[in-house]
């Protein structure tokens, strides 16, 4: 079940919110757990078993690590816990990819089985890993209640598309969270904003991108238009999901950390990654980069650390070589900025630094969106005129004219302008605020009823 579906909005969510609201305090977590399992089972009944086993395993791992006194025994329990989590993720997400790669590299003919990817496995495995590692580090106490721990792993607002919630950030809220009418209202508002970003903007940008992709011969400007549409689509789609997750979290009494901070306004690629998918960057920083030594090592080792982290970040996004390339592309850019461009970028005027970042990020999205390397080469070539049907053509003008309002609104939605100026100004007036939220909700619902293009970008995570 995806958030931007009528079943979710009009059946699942009201039922779960109502049940959660009327349940006595000690029953709130069981209610949330049942709701979350229902949510997951809607599309993936079989994989509920996998998630339940994973929850059980990590629950006992946490207890065992905390219960052991000797450090080598604690470490042994941790290593086994991490290994099992990575093995499960590796098997269900990367099995086919590994077989394909081995067959390709070694000329083998290993049989490839098709396994459907359990939705959200990357998110919940990373949450489980953060829990067992933090218990080992003594940063958090082990969760004694299996139900509460299961709620942490399965909580439906962030189960499928994040943000990756670290246990330390939510530990207290699992047992002590307040749900006020004001908080509920703020959450609902955020949910609707996210829904509108996803349904009204991202889906239409996706349709524009798909239309450009379907064109046989493209001009340079058309290729750039497609790339820009995709860049805005992925941001509005992903941040829209995060908004919805944060909003629903608030409606249930939780406070999740922000996952995006207007990344397209960044003045360097390094800054971009401080603003994009913050929960994932933080996870890799805390559990991979710093344990590897971070930047407190020699230059060579630091470069290696960055490349390892970014290769893994790329691979996390999907079992395909283009994601590895995408990760390494960012690793290389970050290394370049750290060791060569940092001072030069500081001297650039703001608009030039932003343009530099945007161009590199757009190229990054082209790598991200093409799993086929021949196609990727053609797409990248198209951006600089290789194989293009000219610099501009009628198709470009047609798509630009037809989608100009959409592109403008989406462009504004990628900046804080709406939130800080328009929305803040208007939302100081509660009646107007409620009216706009209702309007956005009705428009999004109408689009869901009549529109058929509602892609789900995060299935491969």
């Amino acid at each position, binding site marked *: 079940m995806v958030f931007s579906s009528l079943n979710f909005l009009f059946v699942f969510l009201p039922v779960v919110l109502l049940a959660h609201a009327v349940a006595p305090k000690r029953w709130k977590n069981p209610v949330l757990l049942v709701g979350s399992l229902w949510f997951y089972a809607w599309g993936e009944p079989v994989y509920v078993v996998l998630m339940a086993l994973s929850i059980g395993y990590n629950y006992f791992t946490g207890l065992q690590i905390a219960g052991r006194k000797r450090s080598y025994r604690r470490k042994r329990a941790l290593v086994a816990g991490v290994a099992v989590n990575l093995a499960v993720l590796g098997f269900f997400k990367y099995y086919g990819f590994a077989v394909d790669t081995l067959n390709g590299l070694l000329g083998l003919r290993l049989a490839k089985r098709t396994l459907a990817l359990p939705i959200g496995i990357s998110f919940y495995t990373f949450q489980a890993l953060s829990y067992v590692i933090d218990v080992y580090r003594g940063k958090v106490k082990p969760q004694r209640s299996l139900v509460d721990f299961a709620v942490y792993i399965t909580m439906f607002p962030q189960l499928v598309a994040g943000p990756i919630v670290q246990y330390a950030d939510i530990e207290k809220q699992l047992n002590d969270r307040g749900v006020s009418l004001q908080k509920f209202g703020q959450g609902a508002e955020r949910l609707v904003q996210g829904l509108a970003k996803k349904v009204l903007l991202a889906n239409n940008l996706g349709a524009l991108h798909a239309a450009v992709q379907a064109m046989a011969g493209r001009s340079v400007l058309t290729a750039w238009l497609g790339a820009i549409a995709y860049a805005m689509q992925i941001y509005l789609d992903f941040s829209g999901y995060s908004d919805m997750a944060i909003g629903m979290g608030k409606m249930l009494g939780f406070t999740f950390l922000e996952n995006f901070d207007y990344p397209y306004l960044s003045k360097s690629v390094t800054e971009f990654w401080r603003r994009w998918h913050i929960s994932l960057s933080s996870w890799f920083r805390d559990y991979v980069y710093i344990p590897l030594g971070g930047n407190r090592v020699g230059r060579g080792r630091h470069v290696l650390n960055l490349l390892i982290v970014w290769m893994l970040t790329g691979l996390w996004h999907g079992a395909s070589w283009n994601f590895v390339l995408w990760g390494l592309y960012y690793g290389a850019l970050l290394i370049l900025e750290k060791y060569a461009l940092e001072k030069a970028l500081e001297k650039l005027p703001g608009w030039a630094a932003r343009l530099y970042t945007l161009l590199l990020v757009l190229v990054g999205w082209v790598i991200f969106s093409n799993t086929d390397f021949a196609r990727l080469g053609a797409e990248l070539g198209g951006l600089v005129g290789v194989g293009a049907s000219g610099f501009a053509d009628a198709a470009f003008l047609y798509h630009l004219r037809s989608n100009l309002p959409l592109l403008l609104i989406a462009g504004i939605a990628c900046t804080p302008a709406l939130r800080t100026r328009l929305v803040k100004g208007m939302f100081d007036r509660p009646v107007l605020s409620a009216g706009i939220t209702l309007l956005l909700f009705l428009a999004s619902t109408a689009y869901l009823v009549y529109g058929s293009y509602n892609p*789900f970008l995060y299935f*491969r995570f």
Partner: protein
Amino acid sequence: MLRGYQKMPNNTKEAKALPAAEGALGRWKRWFSVKDHRYTAARLALMLALALFALAMLRQDRARDLDFAAVSARMAAETAGQDVAAQDANGFQSRFGISPEGVGDWLYYASDAVMDVTELLVARGEPAQLDRLQAAVEDHLAAQLEGFRNYGPEQVALLERAILWQRGGCLFYAVSGRADQWERVFLSCLR
């Protein structure tokens, strides 16, 4: 009574002598009375269950090897000479409005000509994924029918005879004068 592993005798002879007197059940009870051991047992059992689950997933019919490369080759031979081209993920997405990434294996042929409605789609995946794909195909088919309703009688005739079904973890969709033939070839691959 010994309540913890740490309190067990360190002397090997002594340690061996005690269990022998207790019997296997007693030894097991004593071992299990240590909390850490219970956690170990639970983790091992769950690890085993995870492995069995993974194995079960591999052995299920829907994950069993249908030689998709062979299916692709057969269907490619069948579509050769027709005015259709193998479509990539973008072509798939632009027509069906959903990304094919979650579908497992798939092949999709379609004509690039605007007035040609010929299509062939074969996909293999989880029932839920195929249900979603089937819904998308039905939407696409309805939109095609609507689009050609008033000025493309030949296209409408082909679209109305479209074949679309789902069985055994596979989905088949064809719009063509040769749709029946393609269906027969695909069914022969399934057997």
